[in-house]
């Protein structure tokens, strides 16, 4: 579905992280982990073509990313970003409905198919009761669900999410991650998300990409644990990785 080789990402020719290579199959849920500032969001923005890559190749569905037209790309991948929605006055329905834009006519009018897709999505995300709520009335957890729902109605095989669990309490974190898992397994989607919840990612994800600025290991969580890839993830003496439980412990 997504094949990345020797990718370097950064700003204005300065790569912050290079030599990223990985490949995602359909139905896979993959997390990108790494310390703050290593370039997780930059990688995601580059994959979403919101900023130019520095080097390397990205293949989406066997096509070179840079040759795909804007509108076609919008039908292949959707995004959930960390930036706040610009207009706080949008209702839940309006935000989600905007996900249908790549398919609507020149005025952006919704036809019956669009409405049906939105309706189904509202049901399955249990957002129906919030339909007419304004964006500023939502809790962080609800808003995140709405943003993911928006990406889902965009009906793309690949969804990129930037830190979808930030600002949420542990139960909502798990709720969102389980939602992503369900999307990958039952809705036939490939999902790539950045996160700081390494232990949750280890438990849930099919693949993990560790950005460490050197070898950037990628693979199944248990393989990565076996190879000791998480031990050096955080360059600090304060915590250590416990391979048995797959979590980080405070050194005492």
């Amino acid at each position, binding site marked *: 579905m997504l094949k990345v080789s020797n990718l370097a990402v950064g700003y204005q020719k300065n790569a912050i992280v290079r030599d990223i290579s990985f490949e995602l199959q359909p139905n896979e849920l993959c997390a990108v982990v790494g310390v703050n500032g290593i370039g997780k969001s930059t990688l995601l923005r580059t994959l979403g073509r919101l900023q130019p890559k520095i080097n390397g190749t990205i293949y989406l569905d066997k096509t070179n990313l840079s040759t795909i037209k804007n509108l076609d790309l919008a039908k292949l991948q959707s*995004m959930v*970003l960390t930036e706040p929605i610009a207009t706080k006055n949008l*209702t839940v329905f309006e935000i989600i409905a905007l996900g249908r834009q790549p398919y609507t006519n020149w005025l*952006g*009018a919704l036809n019956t198919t669009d409405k049906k897709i939105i309706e189904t999505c509202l049901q399955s995300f249990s957002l129906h009761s919030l339909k007419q709520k304004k964006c500023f009335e939502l809790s962080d957890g609800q808003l995140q669900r709405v943003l993911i729902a928006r990406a889902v109605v965009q009906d793309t095989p690949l969804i990129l999410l930037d830190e979808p669990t930030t600002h949420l309490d542990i139960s909502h974190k798990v709720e969102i991650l389980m939602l992503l898992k369900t999307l990958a397994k039952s809705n036939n989607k490939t999902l790539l998300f950045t996160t700081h919840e390494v232990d949750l990612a280890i438990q849930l994800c099919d693949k993990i990409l560790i950005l460490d600025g050197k070898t950037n290991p990628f693979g199944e969580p248990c393989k990565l644990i076996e190879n000791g890839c998480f031990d050096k993830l955080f360059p600090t003496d304060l915590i250590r990785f416990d391979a048995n439980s797959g979590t980080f412990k405070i050194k005492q």
Partner: protein
Amino acid sequence: MRKERSYKFSFLLLLVLVIAAFVLNLSLGSVAIPFSETIAILLGDTTVDESKSYIILNYRLAKAVTAILVGGGLAVSGLLMQTLFRNPLAGPFVLGISSGASLGAALLLLGASVLGGILYFDTSLVIAASLGSFLVLLVVMVVANKVRDTMTLLIIGLMFGSITAAIVSVLAYFSDAESLQRFIFWSYGSVSSLSWKQILLLLAIVILGLVLSLFSVKSLNAFLLGENYAESLGVSIKKSKYLIILATGLLAGSITAFAGPIAFVGLAVPHLTRQLISSTNHSIVLPAVFIYGAILMLLCDTIAQLPNSATVLPINAITSLFGAPIVIWLLVRKRKILF
């Protein structure tokens, strides 16, 4: 479904109000013409006094049509600016577009006497003012690409206003009384000085601007989420931005050129419309904003005309007198402006 019907009701209300304001505007003026006669003249009755029918058809009707175009067009350009910059305080005035038009007009009207040699004709004022507003708009866009912070952008817009005012006063200092007077009258704003030929030209430009706005509806809606989201939805950011700027420049530029800089309509009307229609969808908001702007302008012009007296107040003063308190009231009541 209840939602959609309530929009139909809102539109019906707006349409009724605009017709009422239109007729009211036509029936009031310096010469008292009974309401029944106004209606009769409008319906093509030729038995009414000829001078009265001349006043209605050639003066008041032209003025009312201009007011509709000016009010509606400025309101739409305000809406476009607010969405493009995702800032509730954006509008043709705040961002310096009107100042740009003033500069263009000043260079033509005042500069002609200073520099000499520039011919003053019917459409040259329009061209100069439009060019001025386009210039400022483009500069604002370039700056907007560099500074993402919208607060900074607004301050920059205000600075453009100061620069323009300074250049205008330098020009005014050196120009002769006659052209200075012409410029000052232009800057008071007026919807009553246009001939039918000029109105047709304004109509054509406003329609062009509105058509461009309609073609921008989809990208405007996407911009509500933010630029990155818009891009991920397949919107070509650059193209849409330029289209929106072109539409705003055409609307605000040509209107300011013909009717002078008219304050507050562009800023206030989108907010007033949001009180009536809660949707953010531009295909609903845009026509509503146009009609609302037209209503407001017709009413302001009716007031400016001071019924049954020969005095005409500058329309710019009226829109500010009514516009500013409305914006303050909105801010105080809602504590913050959402858009």
